[in-house]
């Protein structure tokens, strides 16, 4: 306690010195002094002291009790408040001393500020406001409650108060601040102030908080300032004009001309500000500013300041693509600049301008590429990064530049800077074509093995996305690609499981020929028990499991699959994937049984393969392939009765614990499989135990079941387009509810599909699952029908749920088979056979989808969102550029007036009409781009029309002014035109310009 009172004592002495006090505060402190001494020297307790507040301020560790005391006793702001108010410095110091209770300290300070800010004394108020700014700005506390107080401070005659108030306002005000309406007059007063700093403050504030109303109401003031003779004010006004234009496009009518006049100012600061404004404006709608090209050209050639040159280059980067003749003229000075300049920033801007907008000019591009190379080999990582960045801009048009710098790129893949690495990775990926994809991928995978997890996944991601682009456009050798996928999933840091999973399944569905290799890769993945421990790989494993089940006929040894799918470590998998494992095990089991009993048991090899084919929808074209695969099945892994018995035992052993699983999906599937095994087991055991003849007889029933189930599985799946749903016409009489809640009551009995946690993203698979489970149920209840009819029946019964699958059939009919050639490379030769196939089989949906974009959801989202934002922007810019065009293209009669009378409605009607005209104009511009002379004529006539309309409406004295202005401007203008056009020497180009210059 003693030490802290010493601290407070010191503060007593310091405080008054810092205080700014008003006159009315004078008498009372003196009166109060005895009390204060009393406080410190006689009564250290806080009780009953009117000045408890003081204590509270200086003693950081004061108790809550005294806080409440102070609240009750100091209800209104008193003189003591203002005298012993904490300054900003006190606040900051206090905050810095707080190691733990910072939040408490701040809320206490806020409490004080709330009180102080109500004070009638402006000094107290402004200090409070400043403190609040501090807290709001650096500690993010809401300061909207002080909006009105800030306005009050703003009305102070003192500069220091104004400064604080403006600071607070530009910090905290936004479009929906309620008191925004009240600020207009304050701003107007300060904009017309004689003190240039006050003008500057209010301009600054306007630039930040301007909304439509403010911009409209203050346009005349800003307009006046645009030609202020104080350079300091003028340049600030120029910068602010941009904001005013954005908010209130009609102000262009008033201010644009003066803005353009400032382009000819000789003061570099003003020039820099104007050029800055135009470079921002030109970003949004470059075409409107083409007529000003001569001015910009002059600045580009004459400018000594790099700041200005950079901005002008930005403007030309936007203008040049619109007007080839302009590009012709400008490219040489830019190259000169590139050769001469020592400033890297300017050099880079030149390079960027050339590669973005002058890419047809071979020599310029070569020069730029030379400079890029210098950047690339520079020590400075910034230059290196920018070099790579520039390279990626060139890449779209001149790929040779990239491959020329291949070594540098590969080297920068191991740069310490992640940004550089990613940039060079992008460039490397830009080089990928179908010829070098294998080799580049190999290099990259090696890099991925060595690099940190983040970048490793970056690499893998970009390989995956590049290769899958446009439905695997660049992949020729799918066997290689599938094994690459397998390899990638084994990389330790790999977290791209989901993408690899999707591609595994996608390729499996789309590319028939790769299936044997796919199955081999899947086997390698499934069999490795180590992979089960990596949670990122689970998705890949689920795909592998699905592949193994779906395409088991290609496997050399299905029994091996069974063991892999049922190995003990599968307990590490999440339930959803576990369920897929069980399901796949079911498929494999059925296949084994089928080969053993139905095919192997009934007849010898040849006919067996034939029957197999008919089941399998695979066909003539695949005949050669499948016999090979088939031969393998038979030779490498003969499935005997013994092995089947072992298999059944294995299944029972592995799955019986899962009957108690908490996950519904797993439990149900396990039960299904075990139920099936139960059905089969007896027969299988019997057949193994007895004579062959016996088994043939008794196995009949089992064979029937096996055949049935095998039939159900043998239906092949195809990918479904993401947009498929939209193509289904809504059937008559079907009411679509927005809320699917009702569906629950209808589909209550079909739990499986609705709660389906299957991780595959394809609707068709869900169909498969549900149809299968349904089969199971029916089978258990002993109804033995044709499996296909079962399927159909189920579809009839739950037609509502089947909507997607019904639709996919509709689509398949819609798509002409002509789309098939989208398959490439080695698949092309199969295409014609496939057409036949698809015509007769039930799986025609697979091929047509080749022409569809791959459903990479992330990308789609981005594409969807962007246009919306752009649209909004455009709509606003339209009005702005429309106004600019009005001014630039021949409507010189609309002269700026300082009086507000030209703003209101009478003018606006006219404006709307003009707007329409300009829109027509702009359309014409697009159509006959080169034919600018005809455009000029039209503009002229528009101008005349407008002149007539306007003249009466405009004020009389304006004509005087116009004359004055034009006489003062004309000589200089004229000169500038000559100077600028001389080098241009392009007749059509110049014909556009006089329109404006006259």
């Amino acid at each position, binding site marked *: 306690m003693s030490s802290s009172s010493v601290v407070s004592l010191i503060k*007593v002495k310091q405080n008054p*010195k810092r*205080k*700014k*006090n008003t006159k009315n*505060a*004078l008498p009372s*402190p*003196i009166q109060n*002094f005895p009390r204060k001494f009393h406080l410190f020297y006689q009564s250290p307790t806080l009780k009953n002291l009117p000045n408890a507040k003081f204590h509270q301020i200086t003693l950081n560790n004061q108790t809550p009790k005294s806080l409440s005391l102070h609240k009750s006793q100091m209800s209104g702001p008193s003189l003591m408040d203002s005298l012993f108010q904490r300054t*900003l*410095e006190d606040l*900051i110091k206090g905050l*810095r001393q707080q190691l733990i209770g910072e939040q408490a300290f701040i809320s206490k300070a806020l409490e004080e500020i709330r009180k102080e800010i109500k004070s009638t004394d402006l000094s107290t108020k402004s200090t409070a406001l400043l403190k609040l700014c*501090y807290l*709001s*700005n*650096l500690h*993010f506390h*809401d300061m909207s409650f002080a909006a009105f107080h800030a306005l009050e401070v703003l009305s102070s005659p*003192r*500069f*220091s*108060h104004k400064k*604080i108030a403006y600071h607070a306002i530009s910090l905290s005000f*936004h*479009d929906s601040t309620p008191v925004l309406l009240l600020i207009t007059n304050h701003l107007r007063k300060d904009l017309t102030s004689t*003190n240039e*700093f006050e003008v500057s403050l209010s301009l*600054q504030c306007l*630039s*930040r908080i301007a909304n439509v109303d403010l911009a409209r109401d203050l346009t005349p003031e800003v307009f006046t300032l645009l030609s202020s003779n104080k350079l300091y004010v003028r*340049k*600030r006004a120029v*910068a*602010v004009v941009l904001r005013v234009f954005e908010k209130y496009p009609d102000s262009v009518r008033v201010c644009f001309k003066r803005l353009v006049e400032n382009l000819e100012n000789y003061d*570099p*600061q003003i020039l*820099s*500000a104007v050029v*800055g404004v135009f470079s*921002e404006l030109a*970003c949004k709608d470059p075409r409107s500013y083409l007529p000003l090209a001569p001015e910009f050209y002059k600045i580009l050639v004459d400018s000594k300041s790099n*700041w200005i040159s*950079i901005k002008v280059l*930005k403007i030309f*980067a936007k203008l040049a693509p619109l007007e080839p003749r302009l590009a012709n003229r400008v490219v040489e000075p830019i190259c000169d600049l590139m050769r001469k300049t020592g400033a890297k*920033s300017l050099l*880079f801007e030149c390079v*960027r301008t050339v590669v973005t907008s002058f890419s047809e000019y071979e020599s310029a591009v070569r020069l730029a590429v030379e400079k890029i190379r210098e950047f690339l080999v520079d020590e400075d*990582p*910034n230059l*290196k*990064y*920018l070099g790579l960045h520039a390279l990626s801009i060139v890449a779209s048009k001149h790929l040779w530049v990239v491959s020329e710098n291949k070594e540098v790129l590969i080297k920068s893949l191991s740069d*310490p*800077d*992640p*940004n*550089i690495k990613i940039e060079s990775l992008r460039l490397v990926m830009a080089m990928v074509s179908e010829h070098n994809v294998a080799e580049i991928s190999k290099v990259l995978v090696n890099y991925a093995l060595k690099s940190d997890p983040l970048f490793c996944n970056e690499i893998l991601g970009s390989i995956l996305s590049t290769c899958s682009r446009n439905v695997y456009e660049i992949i020729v050798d799918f066997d290689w690609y599938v094994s690459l996928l397998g390899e990638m999933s084994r990389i330790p840091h790999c977290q791209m499981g989901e993408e690899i999973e999707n591609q595994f399944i996608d390729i499996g569905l789309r590319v028939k020929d790769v299936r044997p290799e796919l199955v081999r890769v899947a086997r390698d993945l499934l069999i490795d028990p180590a992979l089960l421990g990596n949670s990122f790989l689970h998705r890949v494993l689920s795909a592998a499991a699905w592949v193994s089940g779906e395409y088991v006929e290609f496997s050399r040894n299905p029994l091996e699959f069974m063991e892999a799918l049922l190995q003990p470590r599968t307990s590490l998998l999440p339930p959803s994937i576990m369920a897929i494992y069980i399901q796949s095990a079911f498929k494999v089991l059925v296949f084994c049984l089928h080969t053993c009993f139905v095919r192997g048991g009934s007849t010898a090899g040849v006919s067996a393969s034939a029957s197999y084919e008919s089941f399998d929808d695979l066909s003539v074209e695949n005949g050669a392939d499948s016999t090979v695969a088939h031969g393998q099945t038979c030779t490498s892994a003969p499935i005997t009765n013994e092995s089947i018995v072992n298999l059944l035992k294995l299944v029972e052993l592995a799955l019986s614990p899962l009957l108690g699983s908490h996950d519904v999906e797993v439990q149900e599937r396990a039960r299904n499989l075990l139920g099936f095994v139960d059905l089969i087991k007896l027969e299988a055991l019997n057949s193994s135990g007895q004579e062959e003849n016996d088994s043939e007889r008794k196995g009949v029933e089992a064979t029937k079941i096996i055949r049935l189930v095998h039939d159900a599985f043998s239906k092949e799946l195809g990918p479904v387009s993401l947009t498929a749903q939209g193509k289904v016409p809504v059937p008559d009489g079907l009411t679509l509810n927005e809320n699917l809640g009702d569906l629950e009551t209808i589909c209550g009995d079909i739990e499986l599909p609705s709660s389906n946690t299957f991780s595959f993203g394809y609707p068709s698979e869900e169909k498969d699952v549900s149809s299968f489970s349904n089969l199971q149920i029916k089978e258990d209840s002993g109804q033995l029908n044709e499996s296909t009819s079962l399927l159909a029946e189920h579809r009839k019964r739950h037609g509502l749920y089947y909507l997607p699958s019904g639709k996919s059939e509709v689509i398949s009919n819609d798509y002409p088979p002509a789309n098939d050639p989208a398959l490439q490379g080695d698949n092309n030769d199969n295409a014609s056979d496939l057409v036949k196939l698809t015509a007769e089989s039930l799986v025609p949906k697979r091929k047509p989808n080749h022409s569809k974009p791959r459903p990479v959801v992330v990308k789609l989202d981005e594409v969807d969102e962007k246009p919306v934002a752009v649209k909004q922007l455009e709509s606003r810019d339209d009005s702005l550029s429309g106004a600019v065009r009005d001014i630039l293209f021949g409507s010189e009669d609309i002269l700026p007036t300082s009086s507000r009378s030209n703003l209101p409605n009478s003018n606006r009607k006219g404006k709307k009409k003009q707007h329409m005209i300009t829109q027509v104009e702009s359309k014409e511009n697009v159509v006959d781009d080169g034919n600018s002379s005809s455009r000029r004529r039209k503009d002229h006539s528009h101008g005349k029309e407008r002149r007539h309309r306007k003249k009466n409406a405009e004020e009389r004295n304006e004509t005087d002014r116009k004359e004055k202005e034009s006489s003062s401007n004309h000589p200089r203008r004229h000169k500038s035109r000559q100077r600028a056009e001389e080098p241009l020497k392009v007749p059509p180009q110049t014909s556009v310009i006089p329109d404006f210059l006259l």
Partner: protein
Amino acid sequence: MIHFVLLISRQGKVRLTKWYSPYSQKERTKVIRELGGVILNRGPKLCNFVDWRGFKVVYKRYASLYFCMCIDQDDNELEVLEIIHHFVEILDRYFGSVCELDLIFNFHKAYYILDELLLAGELQESSKKTVARLIAAQDSLVETAKEQASSISNIIAQATK
């Protein structure tokens, strides 16, 4: 244009924020948290540019402070680096070998200097001398106002002795 300016200390404390585009208070906090995480974690000798939500953030470290400016994709990064350096030099000149503490205790003054340098997200004044002169002129304006007040508080201060 420059969308915002941030000064973040190495410990992640915010020393100055200036927003030229509209950001709500919530967005501001989020932006700072996000960028602080990205920038403070970057090692030395890496490049000074970060891609961030379709914008570019140019940052540079001076002693314990990171100066960050967020710009559009097609703005010139090197130019912004120069602006940052410019700002630092002006601060240095004004405070006399500036340190973080100067900015902490004169946080409003740092703002006033920045306001002279940048306006509406564009460079306003490229001459250090001019900025120094303008700031000095405004300071003297503030001082004369203060003097009137302090004459009173002088009396009080003497009375307290």
